[in-house]
């Protein structure tokens, strides 16, 4: 037995040549990829690799190719690269607006198929073209890492709702939900999170601006430090929220859906342009905030309904609350849905100064 084990191990060493080595300094690790639509159904692919310099600084190098299918782009880019390009550490994939509106499924599908590519990589739509961002050398960690940290911190701590390849594909395949992606824009030498791109299946059809993003995220997940500025009388108040809860009540889901949304949030006032922040004003601020939430959220939900999309996942809430839920039936009656939003705001803190 022992002899066989020994022989087995020994023979295995003859197999080692079959494993492809990828020594980190002998490969080019792709950090970001961008795709733009071109005429005649062609796609222009832009690939960014970080270049590590001797003085520890990082710059970026870009490869561009055009082809009909994305793997063909990969082939053409490999021809231009000195070391093999490896796609295992892609952090961000950007889609130009034109391509996003034509449909991105073909590309996301190849990413999903590749076992080396993580499901948590970020996808984003660019206002303009992807290559204009990727050609720029942004940030001091390389363009890919910069974009990755940009999106990540905005998702984790700010108003950008959470999305990545996995969540995108999950929403795409779900019949009661539609995907959305961050919407970026190049402003001078900086990339800015402009809002959210809403998808119908795999085609971008609408874009939310940064003001709406707050309410959009409020409908989906708990988050801290979301800032919102609004008018109280003649003055402006900025609040940061601390906790957030929401509750969806879907009645008559199969005939005439009535959706009641209750949003509860705790917030603290960080900025007030007026002079003194007394309890009266705080109460006024609270009421004003509640009214804003009710109005804006309702508008958002109706806007989604009118475009026949459901990025918030109202359908998923309906599914959990309805016996004999029928997805096709729901998609028919969704257009007739009515929304009612109520909210409860609790202002817990106004800062250290009275």
């Amino acid at each position, binding site marked *: 037995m022992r002899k066989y084990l020994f022989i087995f191990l020994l023979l295995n060493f003859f197999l080692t040549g079959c494993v492809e080595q990828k*020594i*980190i*300094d002998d490969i080019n690790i792709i950090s970001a990829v961008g795709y733009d639509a071109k005429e005649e159904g062609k796609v222009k692919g832009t690939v960014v690799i970080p270049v*590590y310099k001797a003085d520890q600084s990082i710059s970026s190098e870009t490869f561009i190719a055009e082809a009909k299918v994305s793997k063909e782009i990969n082939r053409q880019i490999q021809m231009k690269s000195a070391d093999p390009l490896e796609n*295992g550490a892609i952090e961000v994939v950007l889609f130009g607006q034109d391509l996003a509106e034509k449909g991105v499924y073909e590309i996301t599908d190849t990413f999903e198929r590749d076992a080396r590519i*993580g499901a948590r990589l970020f996808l984003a739509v660019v206002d303009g073209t992807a290559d204009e961002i990727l050609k720029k050398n942004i940030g001091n*960690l390389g363009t890919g890492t910069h974009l990755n940290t940009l999106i990540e911190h905005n998702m984790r701590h700010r108003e950008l709702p959470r999305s990545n390849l996995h969540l995108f594909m999950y929403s795409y395949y779900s019949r009661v939900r539609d995907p959305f992606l961050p919407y970026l824009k190049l402003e001078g030498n900086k990339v800015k999170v402009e809002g959210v791109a809403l998808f119908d299946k795999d085609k971008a059809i609408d874009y939310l601006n940064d003001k709406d993003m707050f309410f959009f995220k409020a409908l989906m997940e708990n988050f801290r430090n979301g800032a919102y500025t609004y008018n109280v009388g003649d003055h402006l108040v900025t609040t940061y929220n601390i906790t957030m809860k929401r509750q969806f009540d879907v009645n008559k889901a199969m005939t005439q859906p009535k959706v009641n949304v209750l949003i509860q949030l705790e917030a603290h006032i960080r900025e007030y342009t007026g002079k003194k922040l007394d309890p009266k004003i705080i109460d006024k601020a609270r009421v004003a905030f509640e009214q804003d939430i009710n109005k804006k959220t309702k508008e958002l939900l109706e806007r989604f309904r009118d475009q026949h999309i459901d990025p918030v996942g109202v359908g998923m809430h309906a599914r959990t609350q309805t016996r004999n839920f029928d997805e096709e039936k729901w998609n028919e009656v969704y257009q007739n849905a009515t929304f009612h939003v109520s909210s409860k705001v609790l202002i817990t803190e106004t800062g250290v100064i009275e």
Partner: protein
Amino acid sequence: MIRRGSNKSKENPQASSIREALETLKKSTDFVFYKKERGNVPYVISYFSSIVNAEIIHKDILPYIQEMQQVKDLKEKVPIEEIIDVTQPKDLLEKLPLGYVYIYFPESAHLGVLIPAKKDEKRSIAPPEVEFSVVGPKESFIESLDTNIYLVRKRLPIENLRVEKITIGDLSNTEMALLYIEDIADKENVNTLKQRLDDIDFDAIGDSAYISQIIADNQRSPFPQILDTERPDRTATALAEGKLAILVDRSPHALIGPTTFIESISTFEDYLLNWYAASFIRIVRMASIAFSILITPIYVATLTYHYELIPKDLLATLITSRRVIPLPPILEALFLELTIELLREAGARLPTKVGQTIGIVGGIVIGTASVEAGLTSNVLLIMVALAALASFTTPTYQFGNTIRILRFPFLLFAHAWGMVGIVLAFSVLAAHMLQLTSLGRPYLEPFYPTRVRDLKDTFIRMPFSKLSRRPVHNQPDDKVRFKPKDKRIHRDIDE
């Protein structure tokens, strides 16, 4: 008994063969053959001058013999208990080299007697060096069996401490003592060990380490299956747990068995410190063993195959540190690992004072120089140095050496198949360790087979109040060390 039929007038064949035996012994120049023809009783004395204590001969033997009127008074006069009548030449050949003195009276029919006068040169009891601890007793075993037994017996002054002596080795005639506490140590263990010792067939036993390797359950294993210690206190507490100990003459290390993996990486100091501190240090030690085996293989595996596993912030550091290095990760790692091994070996072979210089030269000069020359990356240099440091935390020297070798197969597997290789190597190692036994008792106990009771002295050394039972591993005959206090019947003082 054999002599009973011997004839006075005729010289018997035994006597002539004794003369022959003496002639053989005379070939050694340190053999003394002295005839005293005058006096009450003429006698002939012979011994190896190098191994007998002249003082004993001159003070305790010769004066009494000279006073003696008759040969048969010998046993009453000479104040030494062990006086052996020589019956055959074999006795002479066996005992004289052990430090006996042969005295023969030419005028009597007696063939002679052997009287022990062994020279007992030994160093004094010194503080432990290999298993040093800041607190606790500062005694360690020395090269004398009797002293070593004394060191144990004074810690266990009970009638039940059994000491059984066995002599092994055709050339070395090594005397060794098997120690155990009757009624606590398992009979089966005792029998197994006795059997193993009896079966030893080796001419010259150099040290207890020979014994430990010869009686190991699996001699092909890199793991020491018998624990060796130089601390009498550790030996005594092990005996109290129901283990067995072997003391070997001329060896300053006791062997303790059956032992476990956990015991190999615990020190006696673990029992001397507060249990929180002891447990913490133990966990640190275990982590450092895993670290020292795995860190370089993981480095090689990730850099050769799994670039996607490296966090993006670390990627820049790794790539810049490897930018100018012409070698693939495996050669880089082997180069550094072998450098460390060279330093270790050089340090161990050289005299202490030179050894320290080697450490500094190697550590600072070679390390920095190889980084500057672009032969190795500084990240790996740190890892290898840390791994070497971590491997020094293993408390038993024998086990430390095992750890030292184990990382090389891991390294090769990591290079061949990446992480899969590391997993494969680990599986082989785990399979080996699972079937390993120490004196027939499982080596990985209490993890496999799981013995929950014994877990209280593994990662965490529980306070002594919880260690009320002897480890199940030793299958002790008496399982209970003390009865734990029952909290339910606890009463206040004023009740």
